[in-house]
C-alpha cells in the first residue's frame, strides 16, 4: 500500500476513533446542530406550505367581463381569441347566459325569493368571460385592455376588477406578496443564524483540544495529517445531526396525524406540510446532509487554521 493511502486511511480512522472517545463533546455539538438544522428544515417546510396556501387563495381570483346581450358570437369569439394573446392571461372561460342562470338558480335554491326574482324568460344575467391572470400584480394590464372603447362597447358593465372588488383584490395581492417575501426572508435568516451557531460550536470543540493540535505540530505532523481527523469528526457530526433532524420532523408528522384532529394549525396546513415533506423526503434529507457536511468541514478547517500556523515574528 502506498504511503498516501496509508495516511488517508489513518486520517479517517483517527477521526472516527476521536469521535467515539470525545463522546460528550460529540453529543453537545450534535445537539446544537440538530436543533439548528431542525429549525431550518421546519422553516423550509412552513414556507412551502404558506406558498401553497397563498397559491390556493390567489387561484380563486379572476377578472369577469360581462357582455351585452347584443354582442354576437363572432364578436365574442374574437374577444376570447384576443384575450388569450395577452401576456398576463393564463386562461379564459366563456359562460353563456343560460349557464349563468343555472348557476345562479342552484346557488340560491334555498332562497325562493332570490331564485324567483330571475326567470328563464326574463334573464337579466349577462354572459360572462372569466379571465384567470398569471400575475395578480399586473391586473391593471388586463383592465387597460378591457377599457379600450372598442371593447368597452361590448360590455354591459365594468369588469369585476374595479371599485370595491379591485380594492379587495389589491389588498390580498399586497398581503400575499409580503407574506411570501417574509417566508423567504425567514428561511434565509434561520439558515444564516444556524450556520453561525454550528460554526461557533465546532470552533469551541476544537478550541478545547488546541493543545493536541500544537503538540502534533511540534512533533512534525503535516497540516492535513493534523486537520484531517478533525474534519472527519465534524463531518460525522453533520451527517448524524442531519439524519436526526429529518427523523425528528418525520416522527413529528406521524405523531400529528395520529393525535391531532385538526388538519391545520391556524394558517399552517398540516396535511399539505406532511405531504410536502413526504414528497420531498430525499431532497430534504440530501439538502440537510449537504448543509451539515459542508458547514462541518468548512468550520473545522477554519477553526484548526489558527493553531497550525508557524511563528513568523522574528
Amino acid at each position, binding site marked *: 500500500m502506498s504511503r498516501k493511502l496509508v495516511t488517508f486511511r489513518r486520517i479517517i480512522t483517527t477521526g472516527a476513533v476521536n469521535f467515539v472517545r470525545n463522546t460528550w463533546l460529540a453529543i453537545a455539538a450534535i445537539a446544537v446542530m440538530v436543533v439548528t438544522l431542525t429549525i431550518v428544515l421546519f422553516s423550509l417546510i412552513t414556507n412551502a406550505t404558506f406558498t401553497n396556501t397563498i397559491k390556493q387563495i390567489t387561484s380563486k381570483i379572476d377578472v369577469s367581463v360581462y357582455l351585452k346581450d347584443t354582442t354576437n358570437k363572432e364578436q365574442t369569439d374574437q374577444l376570447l381569441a384576443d384575450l388569450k394573446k395577452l401576456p398576463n392571461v393564463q386562461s379564459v372561460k366563456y359562460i353563456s347566459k343560460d349557464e349563468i342562470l343555472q348557476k345562479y338558480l342552484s346557488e340560491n335554491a334555498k332562497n325562493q325569493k332570490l331564485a324567483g326574482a330571475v326567470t328563464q324568460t326574463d334573464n337579466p344575467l349577462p354572459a360572462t368571460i372569466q379571465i384567470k391572470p398569471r400575475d395578480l400584480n399586473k391586473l391593471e394590464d388586463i383592465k387597460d385592455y378591457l377599457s379600450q372603447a372598442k371593447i368597452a362597447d361590448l360590455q354591459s358593465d365594468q369588469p369585476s376588477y374595479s371599485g370595491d372588488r379591485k380594492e379587495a383584490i389589491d389588498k390580498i395581492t399586497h398581503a400575499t406578496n409580503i407574506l411570501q417575501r417574509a417566508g423567504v426572508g425567514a428561511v434565509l435568516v434561520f439558515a444564516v443564524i444556524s450556520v453561525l451557531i454550528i460554526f461557533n460550536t465546532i470552533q469551541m470543540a476544537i478550541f478545547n483540544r488546541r493543545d*493536541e493540535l500544537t*503538540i502534533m505540530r*511540534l512533533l512534525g505532523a503535516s497540516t492535513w495529517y493534523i486537520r484531517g481527523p478533525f474534519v472527519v469528526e465534524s463531518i460525522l457530526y453533520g451527517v448524524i445531526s442531519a439524519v436526526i433532524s429529518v427523523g425528528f420532523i418525520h416522527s413529528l408528522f406521524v405523531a400529528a396525524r395520529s393525535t391531532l384532529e385538526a388538519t391545520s394549525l391556524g394558517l399552517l396546513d398540516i396535511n399539505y406540510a406532511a405531504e410536502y415533506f413526504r414528497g420531498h423526503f430525499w431532497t430534504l434529507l440530501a439538502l440537510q446532509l449537504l448543509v451539515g457536511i459542508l458547514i462541518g468541514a468548512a468550520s473545522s478547517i477554519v477553526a484548526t487554521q489558527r493553531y497550525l500556523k508557524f511563528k513568523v515574528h522574528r
Partner: protein
Amino acid sequence: MILLDRVSKKYGRVATPALDRISLHVEPKEFVIVVGQSGAGKSTLLKLLTREERQSSGKIIVGGIDYDKLKDKEIPLLRRKIGVVFQDFKLLPNRTVFENIAFALEIVGMGNREIHHTVPKVLDIVNLKGKEKRMPMELSGGERQRVAIARAIVRQPKILIADEPTGNLDPKHAWDVISVLEKINRYGTTVLLTTHNQEIVNKLQRRVVTIQHGQIVSDRAKASYKL
C-alpha cells in the same frame, strides 16, 4: 550538527533579550549538557532549534538546514529529524501510550506492521512494557516522562533534545532516563540535554555549556556543575 552564530531572541517589546548573541557549535554524536538557572534562556534556545520560535537575529544551521531559508512547508520535515523530550511531556491526552509513541511514526507514513514491530522495542528500552493501553492520565509523572522519551527516540533521530527530562523523577528513575540518553548517544545520536541536576552533571563528565542572562558564560569539556 548544530551551529548557532551570534543568535539573539527578543520577545515582543521586552527590553532585555532572552538570548543575547549566542554562538555554539555542536559536533555530530556529541553529548552536550546545557545548564543555567530558570529564566536564563535554556528553553528559548531549545525553542529556536525546533523552530517553535524564530530568532530575532543571527544564523542557525542544524543538520545542514539554514533556518532562514526554511519554508513553512518544510518545518514539519525539519521537526521529524529532531527528537524532542519536552519539559511538560506534551503527550496526546486522548491516545494510549502505544498510540502516543506510534504517532511519531505515523506522521512519517510508516506502515502498521512496522509500527507494531518498532514500538514494543522502544517501550522495552524505557521500561514501560505492559502499559501500552494506558492513557497518559493514568500514568505517574515518571512514567509519562518515559513515554515522552520513547516517542522522541522511536524515529532514531540524528539529534535528540531533552528539556529537563529528569525534573520530575526520583534519583533512581532519573538515572534510568540518563542511561537511555547515553545509550542513544552511543548509537550515534547527538544529544542536547538541559538540566538543573548537579549530581547528574558531575557524574556524566561531558561538555557543559552554562547560560546566564541570555549569554553563554562558560563552555567546558568534561566539566562538572558550576554556576
